[in-house]
């Protein structure tokens, strides 16, 4: 029950993040919105893993019989995607710094106009 609610919440979060990437022309805000999308997808995977139970998947005693363990596989794999998301966000921010040093703005439309002027 709870996991269903979380799944829908995460999908709504991803949708809002996508809208955010579309509607602002500020590069930093676009990157932040991408961060929201990535976090929502992480939440989605956590919700999937809690379908089978809500207890942390740690075995305390060797002959274990408890069944309500959350599925550890999605949690284990999503760590990789968190790391990749971190790498992409930091690379994007580094490139934004380089763009700001060159054009003195983070407005997407202004940068595109300036580059078009460079073309000739």
């Amino acid at each position, binding site marked *: 029950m709870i996991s269903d609610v979380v799944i829908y919440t995460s999908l709504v979060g991803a949708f809002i993040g996508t809208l955010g990437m*579309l509607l602002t022309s500020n590069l930093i805000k676009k990157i932040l919105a991408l961060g929201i999308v*990535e976090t929502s997808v992480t939440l989605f995977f956590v919700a999937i893993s809690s379908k089978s139970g809500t207890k942390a998947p740690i075995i305390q005693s060797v002959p274990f019989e408890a069944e309500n363990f959350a599925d550890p596989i999605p949690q284990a794999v999503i760590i*990789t995607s968190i790391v*990749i998301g971190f790498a992409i966000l930091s690379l994007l921010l580094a490139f934004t710094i*380089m763009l700001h040093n060159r054009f003195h703005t983070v407005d997407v439309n202004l940068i595109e106009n300036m580059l078009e002027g460079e073309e000739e």
Partner: protein
Amino acid sequence: MIIYLSIIPLLLGGLSLALHRRRKIAISLTFASLIASAVILLFNLGKDFEAVIGDWGMLGISIGYDEFSLPFLLAVIVVLAAVTLNSLHKSYDGFFYALITLLLGSLNAVFITRDLFNVYVSFELASIIGFILIAYGREGKQIWATVKYMLIAALGFNFYLVGIGLVYLKSGTFSFLALDYMDRLPAALIFTGLSVKSGLFLLSMWLPDAHANAGTEISPILSGLMVKIEDYLVIRFLQYSSFEWLRNFYLVIGTFSAVAGVLFAMNARKAKDVLAYHTFSQIGFIIAASNMAAAWHAFSHAVFKGLLFMTAGNIKERLGTQKISEWKGKVNIKEFLPLIVGSAAIMGTPLTSGFVTKNGIMDSISGPAKYFLIVASIGTVISFSKLIFVGISKEKMKQRWNISLGYGIMVFTIFAHGIIGFDTHHTLDALLMIAVGIPLYFMLKSFLKPLPRILEKLDNSFILYLLLFGVMLSVIII
């Protein structure tokens, strides 16, 4: 064992990353890993198997090798070897060669993996290296092209993650075997997620900017290898029954991309722009067919487009301009020969690799799509006539041995493939297309003007991508 195909280059890449101050060591490590991959590939020729790493059953990462992977693995080795040779005398530091070695490992990993999440990890690793390579020259245009690419691609890959999450929810495994029993929604999410990097018209409008502005050594990698990952995955996934319904969708969008890309390429004035737009067209051919012939066309496209991009980049570096009109009479015969071999291959002239594989694609497609593809082929001839009739200069020029060797590898591959696979039954069609296209070029020459680049702005390409995603979702719901 096939797993070493990706482990050896990744290991040596890490080593050369640590030793990147010594350029010679980094270069020799790159060549060592290229040779190692070629040898391993040679030992596995003709085999067909699938195995799971460790002893984890359905939960482990499965890897495999079959005839679909072979053209792509070969393309990686040929293109990366030629590119590395071409870069030897330039001022690239050891860091560049470390990145190339790591790229080799991650590309090999994509082409042998059979696990949905492992596809994500290795694809993203290859992409991140690609992002750094596009921005390697640190010009304003290059950085902006990278940022555009990264923003759209990162969003697309989150759709892919949601898709494979849904697959896991239903089947409890990330293995490709789960793809046989799957609903339409995850299939659509996986496909829209991947297609952002596919190089199809309307779906990846970041492409012309990134491919045309990247360095001489980088463009062949981007156009030859990076966009091929997605084509490989499309061809592979269409073998599973849950994806069968997407075949018609890909036929339509591939044909559209083939025609639209050629239109843009015909009208472009800069050499690298022509080549970049033409990637749309050739990827359209590959995606429209999506079978074994398409896999081999991907291989030959990687080789001849890599050769064209490398030659165009070298001429640009020598003359300082990309505009074809300013190249008139200044191109040396030593640069003109690879240029004309590449153009002949992309037009599908007999005895080149383009002829063999394009015929395979034409044979496997029937119905109205075939006529559009023929139109696109004639458009190819028109757009590459610009490069053929560029005019040669009589001056003597000394070319470095490493550049000639780089060209030589690719030219040899083109002719070897073309002669081994030669088959007379479409020779007349191919010659007819060329005979129609060249006069058309001289007729249309004065009307060709660069088309507006509105679709390539960041926000517009976002909207186009999301619109196609919405169309896809509505098709499922209806």
